[in-house]
């Protein structure tokens, strides 16, 4: 195999998302970019996908003949997306048990291109302090700006970061209420470029909605963000549920694109953390420990 432009073996060996299965027309070649390489993929309409490094004999739009494919990349369909890897990926992707619960709605809320590194976008996803300023009157509202103490731990056996007991004031806590109240969140970072959040469900107090962001690094400073929803909602049409998430992400996008530098600095002295940034601090350390260099500015050693 020709050498890849990305030299980060940790990142090469990860599974990366390419597209939402439901949005791919079956039987035709599609093309995208992953880690600066052109990558093609196709599905057979039966939930199977094939992925390969783009080549002139199978260009985008061509009907796809599985028999013609040699030297394919690893491919996997999981959580409604097609995943691949440019290296040697683990057998399993991280686990989201709720995805299997039969009464949930599972959708791709949107796939959006953002001019930012994947780790900057993950940090934004983990961050609650910006709710009153960026998602004004939706996820937060002044003067309720406090980020209360929460817990962060690195789960060693699962190799993921988990932030629990996160609470933030939301002006309209659920569709049923007009009063504001604290809403609980749990965050997981099981993959350097993927994160999952659990949030109290407005329809069933005992269960949690699941919202995940799976980032496809096109290069070190450009991503496609795939947003997965796995929620309890019998009422709203898909487009209503999607629109909410698209609004939220649309508010984050201009902030993300105005962060400088675009790659996430891992030097602890590059930026100023506060207690509210505990999860981001843990995330930066975790990336450092893993030796991730792609999409970050590694700390000088």
């Amino acid at each position, binding site marked *: 195999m020709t050498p890849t432009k990305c030299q980060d073996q940790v990142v090469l060996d990860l599974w990366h998302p390419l597209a939402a299965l439901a949005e791919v027309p079956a039987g035709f070649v599609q093309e995208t970019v992953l880690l600066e390489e052109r990558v093609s993929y196709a599905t057979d309409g039966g939930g199977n996908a094939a992925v390969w490094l783009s080549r002139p004999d199978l260009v985008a739009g061509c009907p796809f003949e599985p028999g013609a494919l040699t030297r394919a990349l690893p491919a996997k369909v999981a959580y409604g997306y097609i995943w691949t890897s440019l290296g040697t990926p683990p057998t399993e992707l991280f686990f989201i048990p709720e995805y299997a619960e039969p009464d949930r709605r599972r959708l791709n809320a949107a796939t959006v291109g953002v001019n930012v590194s994947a780790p900057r976008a993950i*940090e934004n996803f983990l961050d609650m*302090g*910006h709710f*009153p*300023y*960026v998602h004004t009157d939706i996820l937060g509202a*002044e*003067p*309720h*700006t*406090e*980020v209360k103490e929460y817990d962060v731990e690195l789960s060693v056996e699962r190799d993921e970061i988990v932030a629990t007991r996160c609470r933030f004031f939301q002006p309209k806590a659920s569709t049923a209420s007009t009063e504001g109240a604290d809403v609980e969140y749990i965050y997981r970072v099981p993959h350097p470029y993927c994160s999952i959040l659990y949030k109290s469900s407005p329809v069933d107090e005992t269960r949690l909605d699941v919202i995940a962001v799976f980032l496809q690094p096109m290069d070190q400073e450009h991503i496609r963000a795939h947003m997965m929803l796995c929620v309890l909602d019998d009422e709203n049409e898909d487009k209503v549920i999607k629109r909410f998430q698209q609004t939220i992400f649309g508010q984050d996008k*201009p*902030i993300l694109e*105005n*962060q*400088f*530098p675009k790659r996430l*600095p891992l*030097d*602890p*002295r*590059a*930026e*100023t*953390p*506060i*207690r*509210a940034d*505990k999860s981001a*601090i843990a995330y930066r350390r975790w990336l450092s420990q893993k030796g991730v260099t792609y999409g970050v500015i590694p700390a000088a050693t």
Partner: protein
Amino acid sequence: MLDTAKTRWHPIAASYDLPFRHVFHAQLLGREFAVWRADDGYVNIWENRCLHRGVRLSIGINDGRELKCQYHGWRYSNRTAGCTYIPAHPADAPARTITNRTFAGVERYGLVWSAEEPHGRVPDVAGLREGEQLALRGIPLNAPADAVVSALTGYRFQPNGRLQGNTANVSLEGSDTFSVALRAYEEGAETLVVFFVQPVDSSRSVIRGVLDAGPQGAERLAILRHHNERLSKLREIAEREAQAAPQPAPLEPVIERVSPELAEMPEMTAHGRKATIRVTVARKWLAADGIAAFELRPVQGLLPTFQPGAHIDVHMPNGLVRQYSITNGPGESDSYVIGVKLERDSMGGSLCMHETVREGDLLAISEPRNNFPLRRDAVRTIFVAGGIGVTPLLAMAQALKNQNLDYEFHYFAQNQEQLAFPEKTALLGEALKPHLGFLPETTAAKLKEILSGYRPDMHVYLCGPGPMLEAARRIAADLGWPETAVHFEYFKNTNTIDDSSSFEVALARSCVTLQVTAGKTILETMREAGIDMPSSCEQGACGTCLATVIEGEPDHQDVYLNDAERKSGTKIMTCVSRARSARLVLDL
């Protein structure tokens, strides 16, 4: 080859790029700036990057006094660029040292000038007279500065008043690496234009032209249009040539690292009782009957960033040290204004300020310290001031007013003449509620009225004479206010200090054990052992010398901690409080 000298002044904007409450995105030699004019006229030139998460401050909000970051609402003060508020932690005062990088700025010839490390002053330009010039529209172009300068030497134009003609003689009056001066003559009319080429990056520039005269009205527009058309043509040619030439690599400005203590999770760190700042008494006036006001200006440089509720130590000519609250509103960063009440039983402090200190005198002051931080996440905030206790609350109320947050300001005084800083309190408008001539009994009834109707997320801030604070705290507790919602600051500690005990103090982090003997405070004992600890009032009122107790039972003698904090046994004021147990372990 681009001259990348960081010492040379360059224009980075025109004065008209800084309209009311705008933030302008400028760039010089690859480095981005957020440039904004505060309502007091000061032009701030800052690194275009919030220190928290690197978001460009040029997309921030200029509220006239402070710049607010769009991402997390961090607020940075006019002039100093010091962070004054972090909304995610409303109960904490941000470490004063969270300060963005600022750059020198000068407005001259209708342009804003800056440099990374400028030498000397913005040079005088022969033929331009301040106030009479006309700054042309900045023309950005994708071409390196040297190529632009050489193109400009061939620029042809008509003098003012002869724009219709086409026969002007243009002479090159002078040029250097980044500027070109040209004069056009035609039939008695002549006009000087000086072009400054701003090197935005290695391959991008802005042409900033200044004419020596700028008539008003239609003629002005015609002149601007004349140069705009001709410079646009010059741009097309210069860009075409630059495209054909090899592209130089973009410049990479070095972003300074934050200080090591800021890189860690913040613990509030302050400094010892040190008078590190020299100020001049720029103005002294009577703020009210018996209250002298002092405006203190720095002898050189800028004063440090302050937060509402902060106080400074003033070191007086007679050797005494006293604490006074800063009354300034947000962004009023060119001086500190304090109020000093003449105490009848003055020990010499207020007397000295009233009678000895005069306008023009030099004083030594400490950096501001904030042990009375203002939360800004309340649905409603009530301020209750008694007499000179108005000073810290005045600063707080102005901060809330500036952010359009809900508050009411109750001000108790003997009579109208004793209401201090009327010019500042008048700005509070309807929120100001003066209560005049109340006796202790009637005060209590009034306080009941003010403090009734507690709802969650309300906060009250009290500052005034001891008996009034005691009454207000008791009434608040009776009316259901939780202790965490009642914030207070005493002028002084009137408790009789019992310093007869002796005990052992172990400093866990310093790995030192000290013996505190009768008659000595913990603070003094630590200092004798060479351990520096910040302090200010040294009588248990201001909160500066707070330490965390890991083990042992404190003997609280201060007036800073509230009852819950006392009972928890986890905090101690080291200047007056002692130990009930034989041993105290402090987290120092």
